[in-house]
C-alpha cells in the first residue's frame, strides 16, 4: 500500500509533466491538444536514436527536446495557424490527426518493436521512502515537475509575456491592438508546450518497461488530460496536483487484489471513472473556485 503510494506519486509526476503542456495550450488558446503525447514520443525516439549512435546522454537529451520543439513548431505553422479562427472542436480533430500521423510515421520509420532507453541518472537507492528505494531518475521527474509548475505559475502571474498570453486567450483582437503579435505568441506557446511534452517523454520513458510507436500517447495522454481536468484545466499547479492524484489512484487500485484480480485493465477504468466524476460533480477542478466552470470563453465560433 505504501509502496503503491510512492509508485503512484512518481507515475503521477510523469502525467503532470504532460498535463503542464496541455494546460499551457488550453490557457493560451482554448485548444485541447491531442498531439501533446506525440511531442513526447518524438523526443524519446530522437533521444534513443542519438544515444544509441554514441552521442553523450546530455547532448542526446537536448536533441530530443529539439525534435519535440521542431514538431511543435511544425504543428503550429501548418495545422494550428491555418485553423486559427476555426471552432475549437475542429482543432481538436486536427491535433488528433497530427497524433495519428506521428504514430503512423513512427511505425513506418521505426517499426513496432519495443525499445529501451537508459535513464539520465543511474543511481537507484539514494533515498528510501516507506522502505522503498526511489531512484534518482524518479526524483528528477518529481523535481522537474514541481520546478516547472511553480515557474509556469509565476510566468503567468508576474511577467508581461505571461499576461500577453492570457490576454490573447481572452480577447485576441484587443491584444493585437495593444501591439502584441498573436502569431509570435502562438509560436511561443506551442514551442514551449512541445518542449514540456518532450521533457515528460524523455524523463519518464526510462522508467517504463520499454517504448514503441505512440508510447506517450498510449501510456499518458488520457491520464494527463484527466490530471489537467482535475486541476481545473487552467492551472499549472493544479495539473501537478491532478497528475499525482491520478497516479496514486491508479497504483492504489492496481495494488488492491480486489481490482487486479477481477477487473482487467483496472487503471483505465479508474481514470475513466475519475474523469466522468470530476466533469459531472466538480467541473471547475479540485482547486478551482467554488462557482464558475472551467470552460473558457468559447471564441471565434
Amino acid at each position, binding site marked *: 500500500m505504501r509502496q503503491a503510494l510512492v509508485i503512484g506519486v512518481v507515475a503521477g509526476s510523469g502525467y503532470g509533466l504532460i498535463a503542464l503542456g496541455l494546460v499551457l495550450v488550453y490557457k493560451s488558446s482554448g485548444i485541447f491538444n491531442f498531439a501533446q503525447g506525440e511531442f513526447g514520443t518524438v523526443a524519446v525516439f530522437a533521444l534513443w536514436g542519438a544515444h544509441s549512435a554514441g552521442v553523450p546522454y546530455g547532448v542526446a537529451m537536448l536533441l530530443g527536446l529539439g525534435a519535440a520543439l521542431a514538431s511543435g513548431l511544425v504543428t503550429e505553422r501548418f495545422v494550428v495557424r491555418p485553423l486559427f479562427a476555426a471552432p475549437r472542436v475542429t482543432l481538436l480533430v486536427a491535433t488528433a*490527426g497530427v497524433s*495519428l500521423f506521428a504514430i503512423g510515421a513512427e511505425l513506418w520509420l521505426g517499426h513496432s518493436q519495443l525499445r529501451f532507453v537508459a535513464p539520465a541518472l543511474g543511481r537507484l537507492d539514494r533515498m528510501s521512502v516507506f522502505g522503498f528505494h526511489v531512484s534518482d531518475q524518479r526524483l528528477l521527474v518529481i523535481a522537474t515537475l514541481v520546478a516547472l509548475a511553480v515557474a509556469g505559475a509565476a510566468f503567468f502571474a508576474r511577467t508581461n509575456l505571461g499576461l500577453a498570453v492570457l490576454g490573447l486567450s481572452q480577447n485576441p483582437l484587443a491584444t493585437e491592438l495593444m501591439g502584441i503579435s498573436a502569431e509570435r505568441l502562438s509560436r511561443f506557446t506551442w514551442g514551449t508546450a512541445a518542449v514540456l511534452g518532450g521533457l515528460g517523454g524523455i524523463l519518464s520513458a526510462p522508467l517504463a518497461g520499454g517504448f514503441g510507436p505512440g508510447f506517450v500517447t498510449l501510456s499518458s495522454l488520457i491520464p494527463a488530460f484527466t490530471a489537467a481536468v482535475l486541476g481545473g484545466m487552467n492551472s499549472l499547479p493544479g495539473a501537478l496536483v491532478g497528475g499525482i492524484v491520478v497516479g496514486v489512484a491508479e497504483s492504489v487500485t492496481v495494488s488492491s487484489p480486489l481490482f487486479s484480480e477481477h477487473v482487467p485493465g483496472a487503471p483505465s477504468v479508474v481514470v475513466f471513472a475519475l474523469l466522468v466524476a470530476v466533469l459531472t460533480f466538480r467541473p471547475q477542478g479540485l482547486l478551482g473556485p467554488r462557482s464558475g466552470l472551467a470552460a473558457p470563453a468559447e471564441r471565434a465560433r
Partner: protein
Amino acid sequence: MNGHSTVGWIARGTAVGGIAALVLVFPLTRSGIEVNIFTEAVIYAIIGLSLNVLLGYAGQISLGHQAFVGIGAFTSAYMTSVHEQNFVAALGVTMVVGAVQALLLGVVSLRITGLYFALVTLAYGRMAENSLFNITSFTGGSTGQAAPKPAAFASDYRYYYLCLAVLAIVLFIDWRLTSTKTGRALLAIRQDPRVAASFGASLKRYTLIAFVTSGVFASVAGALLAHNTTSVVSSQFDFRLALVFVIMTVVGGLRSRAGVVVGSVFFALTDYLFDRLHLSVAINAIPVLPDLSPDLAPLVVGPLLLIFTLTRHPGGFGEMLRPFGRWLRREPSPHTEIDLRDGERVHA
C-alpha cells in the same frame, strides 16, 4: 435546356449504370478474399454514417467509436458461437446492447459537452479496449472469438450483398432522420440550442435519439464486421481505429450521405488501393525511406488528407460530389442561390 436533351438522359443513365455495375457486378468477378475487403468497405460506410449522426447531426464528437463497433462485434460473436443463437437473434441482442450503451453515453453528453465530451469518449474507448475486451469469457482472450457467417449467407459473395442491403437500410433511416421533424430539430439545436429550446425542441430528447441511432448503426456494423472475418480479436479495435473513423467521416464531408459513404469506402480501401496501384512499391523504391507496408497507409495518408480538408476544403468529398449529384437529379446549378452552408465547419 440543362439536361433535357436525349444526350443528357443517356449520359445520366450511363453514369448510374456505371456506378451500379461497379457496386453490384464488379465484385462477382473478383476472388473471395477481395470480396471480403469490399464487404469491409461497405461496413466502413455504415460506421461512417453512424459517426455522421453524432458528429454531423448532434454535433458531438466521439473519439471512442472503436468501442461501439467492437462491442457490437463481440456481442454478436459471443451470441452466435457461445450461446449458439442464430444470426438474426444475435443481431437483435447486439442492437439492444448498442442502443443501451449509446443511451448511457448520451445521458453523459447532456451534462458534458464539446471538447470535454470528446475527452470522455476517448477515455471510454481506451477503457473498453483495456478492460472489456480483455474479459476472456466474452471475447475469447488473445485468440479471439469465433463468429461464423449466417448459413444462408455463407458465401463471401452473398455476404457482400447482405451488407449492401444493410447499408441501404441505414441510408434510408438516415434520410428519414434528416427529412423529418427530428432532423429539423437536430439542425436547430446544433445551430443554437437556446433558440431551438425556445421553439419547443427538446434538446434532451433529440440528442438521445441521435445517440441511440448512431449506437445501433455502429453495433450493427460491428456485428457485420465480426461475421465477415468469421472471428474477432480485441487487438482489431485499438484507438487508432477510432481516429481513422473520425478522419474518414470528416474527409468524406459531414452531413453529406454520399460524401461520408465515399470517404469511408476510400479509407477502408486505402491499403488495398496502395497494394493494387503498386504505390508501396513506388515508395519503397525511394532509397532513404524504409518500406511502407500498405496497412500503415491510412495512418500516414489519412491525417494529411484531414489537414488538407480542414484547412482548404471544409466540405470534404461531399462538397466535391455535390455538382455531380445536382446533374444526376437535373437540378439547375445554384449560381444565384445563396449557399447557407458557406463557411460551415465541424460544429460542437
